[in-house]
């Protein structure tokens, strides 16, 4: 009996050691490959384990891709060709872990921290970066309030929930046809969904479309059949959906099975509709679905190269979230180049003076930050699924194809 217990303990011990050494053996391939010159560390805190691991991994992949590109092109010229290095932290989808990872990365000499995909965690990490007077650049997180705290060291490139919601209201008013009279808004009930949901619900009146109902659900739900029943009962012309990948897919699956007929489906910063896997899974049935989302500029050559090299390197289509990971590194590299130093004060000052014309984002005008740290020109575009591909249909300057409304 005793022996057996010892044996089992020994077995689990062995497993642990194997796990650690298994990792150790493949270690340190990135650091040694850099060669001479100094190294500038960039911290990246994302929920790499837990429910958002898929999205988080894509963002970190894209950051690594950008760093490899910059290093291959000679690093930061003004700093003697200094190379960039990504230091990864796992927030485990938790605020306190995210904060302690932020502090760990700062203590390991990161000049700037990026992150974190979840607004609550991002805000906690921003607090820590601000206290340590180290710049923080948001990769993905759209909560509005977090930039109302008067932070000096925090920056965000992506459009916030307010921009998303107002762009949605503006665009939908422009593109709607006369037969679209009623709408139902369905969104998940965490910060991400609620933020935009509130603003849209408030402003639907101005679009001339009547909002029949607002349905909320928990993103971790196992079923949305009752919610779909409600939608089927209300028979709206337009369905507005805000959610992550898994829950939106669940929604669409049930809508399809029931054969619920909708004249128009439009997501707002929707993690499902804008993902290529979504089209792979649903094929024809999601043809003409719309999503108002942040996106890379479809009409730039740079974007095309980026999408190809991402797919080559990681074997997967680059998600729209990942683009922000990619661009965040270029914004940092640009600031470093101008600052000529990785000192946090200099870097902060340089970030405030950012003015990048040459970017891959679908926004009119350069990337520049206002006094709060928000990207002034951040905007959403309307994406439509046409012939199994995502194409931008609105606003016109980014449009790849004509908008298709109705059958």
């Amino acid at each position: 009996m005793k022996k057996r217990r010892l044996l089992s303990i020994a077995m689990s011990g062995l497993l642990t050691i194997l796990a650690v050494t298994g990792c150790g053996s493949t270690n340190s391939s990135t650091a040694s490959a850099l060669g001479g010159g100094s190294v500038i560390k960039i911290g990246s805190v994302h929920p790499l384990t837990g429910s958002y691991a898929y999205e988080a991994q894509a963002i970190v992949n894209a950051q690594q891709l950008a760093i490899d590109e910059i290093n291959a092109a000679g690093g930061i010229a003004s700093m003697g060709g200094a190379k960039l290095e990504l230091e990864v932290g796992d927030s485990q989808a938790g605020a306190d872990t995210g904060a302690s990872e932020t502090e760990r990365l700062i203590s390991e000499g990161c000049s700037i921290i990026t992150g974190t995909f979840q607004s609550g965690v991002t805000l906690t990490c921003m607090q820590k970066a601000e206290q340590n007077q180290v710049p923080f650049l948001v990769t993905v997180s759209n909560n509005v309030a977090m930039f109302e705290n008067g932070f000096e060291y925090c920056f965000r490139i992506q459009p916030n929930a307010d921009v998303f919601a107002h762009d949605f209201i503006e665009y939908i008013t422009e593109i709607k046809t006369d037969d679209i009279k009623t709408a139902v808004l369905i969104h998940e009930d965490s910060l991400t969904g609620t933020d935009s949901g509130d603003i849209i619900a408030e402003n639907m009146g101005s679009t001339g479309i009547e909002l029949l109902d607002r349905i909320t659900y928990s993103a971790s739900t196992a079923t949305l059949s009752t919610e779909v029943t409600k939608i089927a009962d209300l028979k709206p012309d337009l369905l507005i959906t805000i959610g992550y990948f898994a829950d939106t897919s669940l929604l669409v699956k049930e809508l399809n099975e029931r054969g619920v007929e909708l004249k128009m489906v439009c997501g707002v910063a929707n993690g499902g509709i804008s993902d290529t896997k979504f089209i792979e899974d649903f094929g024809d049935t999601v043809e003409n679905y719309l999503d108002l989302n942040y996106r890379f500029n479809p009409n730039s050559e740079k974007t095309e190269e980026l999408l190809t090299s991402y797919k080559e390197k990681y074997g997967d289509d680059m998600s729209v979230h990942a683009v922000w990971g990619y661009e965040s590194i270029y914004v940092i590299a640009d600031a470093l180049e101008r600052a000529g130093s990785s000192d946090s004060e200099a870097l902060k000052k340089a970030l405030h003076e950012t003015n990048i014309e040459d970017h891959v984002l679908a926004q009119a005008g350069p990337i520049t930050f206002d006094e709060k740290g928000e990207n002034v020109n951040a905007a959403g575009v309307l994406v439509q699924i046409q012939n199994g591909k995502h194409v931008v249909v609105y606003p016109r300057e980014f449009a790849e194809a004509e908008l298709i409304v109705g059958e």
Partner: protein
Amino acid sequence: MISDFLKRATNSTNNGRLTVQQIVIICVLSLAVLLSPLYVSNYRLNLIIAILTSAYFAQCWNLMSGYTGQFSFGHAAFYGLGAYTSSILFVDLGINPWIGLVLGMIVAGLVAAGIGYLSFHYNLKGDYFALATMAFCEILRVLFKNTKALHASSGVSIPYSKSIALMQFGSKQGFLYAAFVMLAAITFALYKIRRTKMGLYFVAIRENEDAARALGINAFKYKMIALIASAMLSAIGGSFYAQYYLYIDPTIAFSNTVSVSAITPCIIGGAGTVFGPIIGAMILEPISEITNAALSNYIGMNMVVYGLILVIVIMVMPKGVIGLTKELVNKYDKKKAEE
């Protein structure tokens, strides 16, 4: 020599008094913490603060679950209430967080009284009680998530200031000393309680509730006292968390992870002992820190290793570090006596 030292150090039969060895260990550790800003980097202070706060929260749990044996799996409820009360009152009504802290304790105490009344009146025990506390915590999470007046899912963001009057201790050192005082106070209280009549009643209830009742101990009353005290103290921990991290939302405040974090250090160190939770926190926090840092490029492996270490520790020492040390020392003594 070492065995003798360990024996004295883990001795709890010395009339309930501390042995010299125990006092030496406590003094050395306290000094190490108090002087740490002198020799530890600003970042490492973080780890020490994490150990102190985690030990504090585990002590709160220990007071109720370790001492009276009522196993709570939803201590995040009280933690969250403390965090929310002080934060909402401060942000919305401008009430000083120190007052909010006290009000938070009262709110947590009242909710605990409600939970305790329902649970103990209807005699919930063991796993049933554990699951009930977990459900209460989930109910609070859903309520906070869906109530606009409580900021719903937006959570509460607290402006950063450096004023002690606003319960922000300016620097890491400030938080370090605050956490140290909290932990020292609760540990001292737990140590004192053991030697009172109430402490004996607590243990009697844990060991055999029916027997305790038969002896005329009002089990309901003492379980209620333990739960309410534990809840009020947890609320302080929650307020402290909110002031340290400056942001809370329902999933952060009432998460299952928080509840589990109250339990693990206590069980790893030794539930129902005065110093178990501190030892547990001293082991667990660095492990999680090390796995995170060392395996940061191997996503998921950090958690696998942490989980495996947890599993192994529980298997090797089901009675915690303190229990295991005692066992080993006893064995050694026996062997010696046989020789």
